[in-house]
């Protein structure tokens, strides 16, 4: 049973326009058992220091095999094990969208996925977009032309999100584009040029 006389509370607050867990209030009443959190921490001696798994994943059409710890996030696997640093890490708890990649064609937060979960799956990162080193993907070209980025930190996540969005909905309205962008934070542009870029891709297509 999951601690009926104990509850753990996440207080949602927002200091940076983001959803974040800030305050944990542990409410205990009539405690006959210690808090769940402490119980779990007391169990740490039983946890292996490193729980290693050998996985094979296809990234941008190329197969990679690595032995990694189960606690490694997919974002860190892509960046540190594979050296594909185009995937950016922003918040690491699923708010900012910078780490978005395609996991079996679907945009996914790579910071909310474990690297072991990529075993046998197909991933695509921003490095897989461009047709060649000299020819951008039409989506990248549209961002270039509409000035759809300033610092560029959020751009890889937005490109991967929009690639799948346009594949499913090739002729979106502006409202649909804004809705589809809701899971990606950009602190530079105010989004207008990003929306323009995505709509320009539509116009060409």
């Amino acid at each position, binding site marked *: 049973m999951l601690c009926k006389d104990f509850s753990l509370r996440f207080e949602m607050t927002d200091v940076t326009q983001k959803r974040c*867990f800030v305050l944990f209030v542990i409410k205990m009443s009539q405690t006959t058992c210690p808090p769940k959190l402490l119980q779990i921490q007391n*169990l740490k001696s039983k946890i292996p220091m490193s729980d290693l798994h050998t996985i094979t994943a296809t990234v941008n059409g190329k197969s990679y095999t690595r032995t990694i710890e189960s*606690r490694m996030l997919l974002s860190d696997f892509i960046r540190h094990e594979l050296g594909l640093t185009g995937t950016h890490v922003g918040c690491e708890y699923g708010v900012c969208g910078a780490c978005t990649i395609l996991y079996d064609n679907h945009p996914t937060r790579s910071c909310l*996925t474990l690297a072991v979960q990529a075993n046998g799956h197909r991933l695509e990162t921003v490095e897989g977009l461009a047709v060649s080193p000299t020819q951008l993907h039409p989506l990248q070209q549209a961002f270039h032309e509409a000035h759809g980025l300033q610092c560029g930190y959020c751009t890889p996540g937005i490109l991967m999100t929009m690639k799948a969005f346009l594949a499913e909905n090739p002729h979106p309205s502006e409202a649909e584009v804004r809705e589809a962008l809701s899971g990606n934070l950009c602190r530079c542009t105010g989004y207008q040029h990003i929306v323009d870029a995505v709509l320009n891709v539509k116009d060409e297509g």
Partner: protein
Amino acid sequence: MKPAAFKYIAAESLAQALALKAEYGDEAKWLAGGQSLVPAMNLRVAQPAVLIDLNPIEGMAGLTVKEKPTSEPHALVIKAMTRYRTLERSAEIATHCPLLHETMPHVAHPQIRNRGTLGGNLAHADPASELPAVMMVLNAKFKAQSVRGERWIAARDFFYTLFTTALAADELLTEIAIPLQPDTPTARTRTCFMEIARRRGDYAMMGVAASVTLDANGVCTDAQLGYLNAGDTPILATQAAQSLVGQSISAAQIQAAAAIARDEVQPPGNVHATVAFQRHLATVLTKRTLTTILDFRF
């Protein structure tokens, strides 16, 4: 911002998963979509010793509309590992369960909806989430399985308090059954979902799922009002809903029901929305959902 060490087990079958959970109990957590668990692990709020990954198991996702004998309501049965994106795009859900269909785009962002699962959401039991409140309004039932067998738990008995449910340490939520209410000459049910969030996809400051059934004369025979982020569990405003039953609902009665609901919700308040503001939102959203239902949907 990295998870603490744990032992990861990719379950190959439901039987194996249940046996593992029976062995490890509270030390192990199920890994479904991971869209709430992994951030909690990244923040080290959750430090499970063992993760049992349900994703590799075949046959734990999908949905069917069950045709039952005419004396019983039809049911929509959704397997627990069905992802939000499937629910969002399902023609069956759009046809048979419009409340769930209307709610899905409000659940987080597209990337989260590609991974998150209905069963994981309900077992996580976040009272600020949309789906627990919707399941209470729809009077859904949840199937819990363990090595000891299986049992059905009503949604209204499932949510104990924050992040705490009726599931035992060895149990897994495997199916969600929603009774359907097709139109009959004597009963027509219409529903509406609304929430107010500061940014689309963020946790709402307040949200309402409403359902109203009218008979052939336009008299209300049943009403349900469910609220999210309105207490330690999803909250049903039973007195507000009951005030509508037996009436041909007027604007004044909607106003009165909204005033009752205002006092029935128990919102926690936070930095974005004081308790008074959350209660105000509950009032406004109650009026809007009921007005929408009665104006446009019968």
